[in-house]
């Protein structure tokens, strides 16, 4: 760890960088925590752990992984094995804690009753229903009492199989029974919002059951998981939680030669590349490309950052076996400049933060330089063996999705369209003329359930066009969209090049005849399009309808939101006298007749999108 120094920029301790050593994290936990707490701007959050076994060691390591993501959690832990009682019969301290996230840490030990030998299918089914009922009572109680989001373990498997392989095939076998319960848990997760599954069945399989459960730690300390498994489960939880708070990565930037294909395109030419089924190494590169393509399909942006002549670099993707095609990449940098410079350019081009980029390169020197020059970028140590790239990348949990929405699938297309928009921009006499040519339409309205996930994501990801940098969980967003004390607005923007998706959100709290604007965010990808004016027009109209006379705008400066310092003055607000600079307030009297500010965006009706309901 680095010595203390006032000028020294804070850096993640090496123990927490890839590749991770569970052993070192457990051994140096206290020192790591101390170091991690030195970070500026930690995001606070409240997590309750309801345990079916001891939870102390879970909380202690989860704490470390969350701090590494910039999240400072405070924890509530239920009494030993009181996960059901505390939630259902309402432990006062649990209530008082008012969690944002409730993690239910149960394992196979917590199944109330397993089927008995030779039980009929009917009896097993009945038992299954009653077990499910118990958990559903627990979950609905938590959902009712708190705005919290639930993270629930599914079940791992016991180490012992007294019935041998019949445990898996007979309906009264434990393996068979647990897998059926898992299917029921999964069904609940699919059909309920504010509920996420923590797949410990996978985690235990990945580690192996003999490593996952350590009998001596179970009997001595009632730890349902071994110390090593504790690291695995908390790492997985941290990946989920960082996504809940909008801290998932957005873009994967890839090197080309010996990363996406074997060989050097500039030297070996197309026919010399190792890629495709007829070669063991070529097949491994093919599979890595498939993995990357899968990420792209579900909304992860791709970029190329390669030391190559651009023509050569592009030629590589014309290889007949290349799964990835040029159009899969939202940004393409092939030149001889330092990779750190190229990555900065990619971030600027895609309008995303450096901290939402992951860089994969087989060359350790390039990785080291990028890690040093742009420390915000995540640079996993993928080694140089392509057969391990995907697993190492995945192990980091950078891109953990909570839900896959239509918007995610269309995102890659949006960024490609944007290149066309920019190209188009240069051909117009005036910017106004350009905006008019975009043929923009906006759908603006109060929050509706189908958009809640995306709204939460936008709120928590936006840093620059964000007036107050307030963060909300999806549960909070859902609650305030219905409580009658808030005005909520979302905005989607379309233009002739395509759909920009849901790009702006406003939340205001009603206080008598005034509305205080608690939150106003907008995606930077639609800056200078007039969308902020369109949102403001809609807000004023909403206020008029409700008889609200005054708008109060709040600006809380952060390191990143300087661009909106004068946002309210540009909309015609007056600065409120004697408002402190750390929370500057602006006022706007709602006139009886209001002239819309927006010029080039038409409003369209709100469409309830079919088949995407999340609650």
């Amino acid at each position, binding site marked *: 760890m680095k010595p203390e120094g006032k000028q020294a920029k804070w850096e993640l301790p090496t123990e927490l960088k890839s590749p991770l050593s569970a052993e070192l994290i*457990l051994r140096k936990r206290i020192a790591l925590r101390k170091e991690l707490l030195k970070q500026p701007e930690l995001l606070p959050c409240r997590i309750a752990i309801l345990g079916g076994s001891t939870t*102390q060691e879970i909380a202690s390591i989860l704490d470390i992984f969350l701090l590494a993501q910039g999240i400072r959690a405070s924890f509530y832990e239920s009494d030993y094995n009181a996960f059901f009682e505390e939630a259902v019969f309402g432990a006062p301290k649990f209530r008082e804690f008012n969690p944002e996230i409730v993690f239910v840490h149960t394992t196979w030990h917590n199944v109330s009753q397993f089927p008995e030998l030779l039980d009929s299918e009917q009896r097993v089914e009945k038992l299954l229903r009653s077990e499910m009922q118990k958990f559903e009572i627990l979950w609905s109680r938590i959902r009712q009492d708190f705005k919290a989001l639930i993270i629930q373990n599914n079940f791992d498997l016991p180490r012992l199989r007294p019935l041998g392989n019949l445990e898996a095939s007979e309906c009264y076998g434990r393996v068979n029974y647990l897998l059926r319960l898992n299917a029921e848990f999964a069904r609940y997760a699919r059909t309920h919002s504010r509920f996420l599954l923590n797949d410990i069945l996978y985690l235990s399989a990945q580690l192996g059951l003999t490593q996952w459960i350590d009998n001596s730690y179970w009997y001595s300390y009632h730890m349902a998981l071994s110390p090593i498994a504790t690291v695995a489960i908390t790492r997985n939880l941290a990946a989920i939680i960082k996504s809940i708070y909008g801290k998932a990565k957005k873009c994967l930037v890839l090197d080309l030669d010996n990363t996406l294909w074997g060989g050097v395109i500039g030297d070996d030419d197309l026919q010399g590349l190792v890629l495709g089924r007829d070669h063991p190494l070529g097949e491994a590169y093919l599979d890595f490309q498939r993995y990357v393509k899968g990420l792209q399909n579900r909304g992860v942006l791709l970029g190329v950052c390669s030391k190559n002549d651009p023509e050569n670099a592009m030629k590589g993707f014309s290889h007949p076996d290349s799964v990835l095609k040029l159009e899969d990449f939202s940004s393409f940098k092939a030149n001889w400049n330092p990779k750190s410079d190229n990555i900065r350019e990619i971030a600027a081009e895609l309008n995303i933060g450096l901290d939402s980029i992951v860089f994969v390169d087989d060359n350790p020197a390039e990785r080291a330089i990028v890690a040093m020059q742009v420390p915000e970028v995540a640079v996993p140590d993928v080694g140089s063996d392509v057969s391990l790239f995907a697993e190492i990348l995945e192990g980091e949990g950078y891109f953990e999705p909570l839900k896959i929405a239509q918007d995610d699938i269309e995102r890659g297309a949006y960024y490609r369209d944007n290149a066309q928009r920019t190209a188009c921009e240069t051909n117009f006499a005036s910017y106004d003329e350009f905006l008019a040519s975009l043929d923009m339409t906006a759908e603006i309205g109060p929050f509706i359930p189908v958009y809640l996930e995306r709204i939460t994501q936008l709120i928590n990801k936006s840093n620059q066009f964000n007036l107050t940098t307030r963060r909300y969980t999806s549960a909070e967003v859902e609650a305030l969209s219905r409580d009658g004390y808030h005005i909520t607005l979302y905005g989607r923007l379309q233009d002739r090049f395509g759909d920009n998706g849901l790009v702006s959100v406003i939340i205001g709290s009603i206080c008598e005849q005034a509305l205080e604007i608690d939150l106003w965010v907008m995606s930077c990808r639609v800056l200078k399009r007039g969308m902020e004016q369109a949102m403001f027009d809609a807000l004023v109209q909403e206020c008029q309808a409700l008889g609200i006379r005054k708008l109060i705008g709040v600006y809380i400066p952060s390191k990143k939101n300087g661009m909106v310092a004068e946002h309210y003055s540009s909309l015609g607000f007056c600065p409120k006298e004697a408002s402190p600079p750390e929370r500057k307030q602006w006022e706007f009297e709602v006139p009886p007749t209001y002239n819309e500010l927006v010029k080039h965006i038409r409003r369209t009706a709100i469409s309830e999108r079919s088949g995407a309901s999340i609650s």
Partner: protein
Amino acid sequence: MENSLFRLQAIFQEVFDQPELNISATTTARDVPGWDSLTNINLIFAIEREFGIKFALGEIQELNNVGEMAVLIDQKTKNRAKT
């Protein structure tokens, strides 16, 4: 035992994050501030990994001080060397 004690000291210093911590054969849990059930688990696990051994159920509970721990570790590492 001396050698094991020396290695144990380094583990103790890291687990409890007390770089100045000195332990001896007679040290007990009461002598080390911060030795609670959680750090105890971290400590046991770190020792198992450091020496490449596994404590059997109940072995730890019978130990009275760090010296006995070192003796147990020596036995275990010796047995391992034989097999």
